């Protein structure tokens, strides 16, 4: 957790860095944590693209009207 919190030099979702307050396109990546002979090893990977159907739904920009919240 601490390694990741340090490594991710951006703010995204629940992770907020007071020294990097904005999201960075470069960090559109997942951090992976694996045990190795030298201790914990961190690598990154880029998430897959959504399917065409879900991409269409994303592009349609549906959103909640907050004032309807119960």
């Amino acid at each position, binding site marked *: *957790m601490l390694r990741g919190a340090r490594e991710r030099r951006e703010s995204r979702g629940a992770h907020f860095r007071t020294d990097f307050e904005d999201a960075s396109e470069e960090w559109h990546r997942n951090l992976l*944590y694996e045990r190795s002979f030298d201790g914990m090893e961190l690598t990154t990977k880029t998430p*897959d693209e959504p399917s065409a159907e879900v991409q269409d739904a994303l592009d349609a920009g549906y959103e909640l009207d907050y004032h309807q919240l119960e």
Partner: protein
Amino acid sequence: MTSNRSIGDNPTVDGGDSDSDSGVEYETVETPVLVIGAGAAGARTAISLAENGVSPLVIGKRDHGDAHTTWAAGGINAALGSRDPEDSPAIHAADTLNEGHMLNDPAGVETVTEVMPDRIRELEDWGTPFNATDEGAVEQRYFGAQSFRRTCFVGDRTGEAMLETLIGRAQELEVPYRENVQVTKLLSDGERVYGALGYDMNDGSFLLFRAGAVVLAAGGYSAVYDRHSSRDEENNGDGPALAYDAGARLMDAEFVQFHPTGMVAERYGERWEGRLVTEAVRGEGGRLFNADGERFMERYSPEQMELDARDVVARAIAREIAEGRGTENGGVYLDISHRDRSFIEERLPSMYARFADLGVDLAAESVEVAPTAHYSMGGVEIDFETGKTGVENLYAVGETTAGIHGANRLGGNSLAETVALGKIVGDHLAERSFADRPVLPASQQRLAREHFADLDAMAGEGSEVPEELLGELGDLLESHAGILRAEKAVVRVRGRCRLLADGRRSRAPGGPRAP
């Protein structure tokens, strides 16, 4: 699940034996599939196995039927379209990806959203008393950041009702269950898992589980923070830690969701530290004030105010407290006293009753709240078609895993994930044959004996009190790697954690294994 039944009584589980050649005695339990964790994810996995003729053994840390799932109040998402027919699994997936800031595994998300309507109908068939519309369809309500009314619910006790249903179904299928077991290590050579080691929390005796496959359904890690919304012995990272130790990869561990409004111990007592004041209090008009009496959300989110996304409100509260505008108990005020008493009693019955028991009248005064660690998005990296981790015979499901929620979880998706993936993992495992399990390799037998000897050495008198070490770790994480983080603070806390860990190695923690 069959409670209070010793494993030896069950014909589907090979009888145990004991081994004392190393000087440390332990009981051996054989099972085709060991499911670690007895919440919704573990129960749903076990149901699929049992329905397909494989009898797994489910083990849990608590009394049967009392897993953390019961604390999930809000609801469970499925694009049924009871209220909004234009909703669809694809839009549910899009909402999930948006809230996860596009770090989610998109195929995994789609798998969950596609099967959820079936999972809800199945739960209904098995007896979950979902609230219904006048036409008899499953009722659905709005929830933060969802485009349509999609969240199914059973009053404000959805998780509890769902777990009752799942356990009832597992009992019908006579799924063997053993309670009060703490697992401390998986039997693994880094490439393949053979079982698990642990102890009985009642009497402290050691247990070796020999299994064809192990499913980790042991929850998340939000409770490593000092202020958290789980009970103390839940969600303390067992699942991801066991997997990591066994050689599996973890992902997204830096993402922890903080709920904006947890109760403040300094005001309401330790027992209530971090427990949730439901989002509905804000939904019904509750306002947040700092110690100066300022409605500070006006500065952070003038449009949406108290109803902005969880992470936005949680950060705003954390900033107010960090910058010295919090209460002397370390919180801010949440006030709904401008509403009529009858309205509060009708719309927020459980909150009204809880605070009344504490001598606080919600209709007349404000309550003190602060953000609380609530859910861990990160965890074990898995294949969403099977639940496989990178280690042979090791599977994971539920909050223990990473990938469905990305950088932030959409409300109502945690319960959805448990049943959607539980069935998938159980069905996959049921296709495997567990007929011939080779004998446990000598290296694994040695690993077991060494581990039990270590546990035994730790259980004696020591110079450290485990609760104090955990408390110090929780404080450090919270103040330096909580809602607001910065490079310097994170580096400092890592250094301090290393000192804590080194100290632990040289000075054995004291205290008994069993309470």
